């Protein structure tokens, strides 16, 4: 007799039987199948180029090892985070819960990073940060499963102070946007400049992402400092460089900046940027065999010139390879995996670097001067700069 109850219960039984079959692959997949690597990067919007560069660099590092991690094949998953902090947690969860990635590589924007960071701390998934410099990820909220291969926001400016005072620029004005990255960059500058004996005459700021600099440039002129130090990036940086030169300030007041002031914008800034001094952990024109080889290989593979973001992506790949090789592909052996990555020395195009206790790179900062649309390295501003990792309790 076909009653509704019969149909329902039989269906439930069939579905139950079928879905238990779905569990099996999960158990078997554990550590012998492909390694699942998830990219959570901006593939659209202002930072799209950076997302693409990071992924390119990462894949190049992997392919140099035959495309395998610790002997296992790799499967890639991608999510476009659109640089949207509001969807950060949702996007990160999608990679972790739905795609069940073993490693989450991301991201560029610090606001989105906080979303990833929450998911990483809650689920314990291995998170490799290829760019976002937000301090708290390797300070107060550091975690054993989170590693950064790029920089922290204050690292470039920590190397700026000494370089400025050495050149006799003892009175400076600081200017940036009033937002997290700007505040954190100032932290590094304030520490290094005052320790080297410099005086910060005034700290100027404008709301992010306002690019009307005229009022503050006029203010700078009236303050008559020896130099100006700043943090700007992207389109705003190009405009600042041009406005600074157009106001004639570059003739008498030397402009310094965290390296991002002159990354990716030199074509747009043109002659206005000539003579600007910046500090950063990399420069396209770094004259070392490692960098030359990297740039040649990257250009051949992707028909594009690499930038600092490609290097950071590449180093992320190198770091994961080291870790995976150390545990012979068994990424569930977290203790050994993390230990291997903590102790790794990365032979990067930027030079050799290693991890600090709070999982941030300890690296040299180069002093660069803009000359004809290039960041020429004129020396090392400071060796082995480390982020203080204040408040990190990881043992």
């Amino acid at each position: 007799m076909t009653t509704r109850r019969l149909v329902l219960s039989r269906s439930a039984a069939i579905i139950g039987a079928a879905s238990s079959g779905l569990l099996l692959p999960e158990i078997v997949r554990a550590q012998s199948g492909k390694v699942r690597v998830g990219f959570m990067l901006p593939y659209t919007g202002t930072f799209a180029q950076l997302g693409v560069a990071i992924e390119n660099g990462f894949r190049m590092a992997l392919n140099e090892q035959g495309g395998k991690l610790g002997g296992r094949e790799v499967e890639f998953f991608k999510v476009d985070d659109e640089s949207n902090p509001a969807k950060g947690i949702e996007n990160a969860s999608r990679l972790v819960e739905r795609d069940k990635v073993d490693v989450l590589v991301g991201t560029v924007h610090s606001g989105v990073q906080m979303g990833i960071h929450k998911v990483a701390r809650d689920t314990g998934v291995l998170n490799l940060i290829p760019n976002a410099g937000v301090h708290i990820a390797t300070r107060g909220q550091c975690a054993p499963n989170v590693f950064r291969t790029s920089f922290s926001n204050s690292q470039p400016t920590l190397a700026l102070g000494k370089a400025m005072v050495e050149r006799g620029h003892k009175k400076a004005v600081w200017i940036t946007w009033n937002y997290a990255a700007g505040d954190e960059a100032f932290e590094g500058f304030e520490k290094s400049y005052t320790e080297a004996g410099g005086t910060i005459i005034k700290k100027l700021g404008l709301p992010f992402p306002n690019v009307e600099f005229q009022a503050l440039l006029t203010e700078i002129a009236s303050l008559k400092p020896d130099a100006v130090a700043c943090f700007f990036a992207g389109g705003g940086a190009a405009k600042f460089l041009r406005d600074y030169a157009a106001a004639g300030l570059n003739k008498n007041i030397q402009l310094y900046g965290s390296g991002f002031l002159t990354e990716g914008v030199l074509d747009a800034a043109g002659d206005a940027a000539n003579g600007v001094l910046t500090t950063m952990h990399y420069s396209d024109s770094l004259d070392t065999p490692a960098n030359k080889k990297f740039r040649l290989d990257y250009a051949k593979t992707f028909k594009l010139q690499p930038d600092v973001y490609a290097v950071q992506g590449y180093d992320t790949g190198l770091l994961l390879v080291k870790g995976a090789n150390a545990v012979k592909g068994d990424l569930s052996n977290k203790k050994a995996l993390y230990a291997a990555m903590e102790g790794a020395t990365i032979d990067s195009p930027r030079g050799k670097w290693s991890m600090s206790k709070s999982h941030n790179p300890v690296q040299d900062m180069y002093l660069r001067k803009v000359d004809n649309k290039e960041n020429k390295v004129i020396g090392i501003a400071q060796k082995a700069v480390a982020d203080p990792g204040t408040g990190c309790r990881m043992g």
Partner: protein
Amino acid sequence: MDLANFLIQLLNGLQYGLLLFMLAAGLTLIFGIMGVVNLAHGSFYMIGAYMAWSMSALFGNLFVAIVVGALLSVALGWALEWVLFRHFYHRDHLDQVLLTFGLIYIFEEARSLLWGDDVHAVQMPASLDWAIPLTDNLSYPVYRLVMAGICVLLALGLYLLISKTRLGMKFRAGAFNHDMTEALGINIRLIHGIVFALGVGLASVAGMIAAPISSVYPNMGSTVLIMCFVVVVIGGIGSVRGALVASLLVGLVDTFGKVLLPQVAGMLVYMLMAAVLLYKPEGLFKH
């Protein structure tokens, strides 16, 4: 702040305000005469800037690029009005917001496909690429002065158009009472097309003129759009005179705010808007 500094900051504020006016004028005309909320106005500014970039590279001359770009954008505005906006005059403002918000995304993606995501420079014409020294270490770029001059001429031109010509009379009639104007035999559809094309053209030319100074980059339209709406709301919707007064006011408040009250600089303009609306809910000027 000494007198010299004050005067320079005054100049900064007025120059910024005049550029805002060029954008706000188009927006207020479209909103006032056609009743359409056009969130995509900032995108036209961006399109203008990118056009200036690719065309000045093509023609080797910024002036030619601006003229050609102006014609193209007027044509674009006309086409958009004919294909899309025409059907939205009688719709709810929310529908218009949704349409134009969607257009923002479409334009951004189109920009990404056509021109890429890099930051670009537009070469300033050599004849204008010099600066007037104001103090011993500060100079004022002549190009900015020329820009301000163009905006003033524009303001004058709009004033003459709207208050002294028959076409302007038709604009004002259409804004005042749409149906009656149509009933009196005036081709209101043509008027709408002209106003929209003019609005888009103004935004686009503003982007083209500002391009050598601001550089050309993704999302450049969004920040300027918000300021634009603030100006239109303060000045009174549909009033070009209001847009002029409001944009100068906003320019000055923004400039002096950054220097005198930096902690609240980001809020000052909005506080100004709130203050004006409390005292005059319809903005400073009516039609």
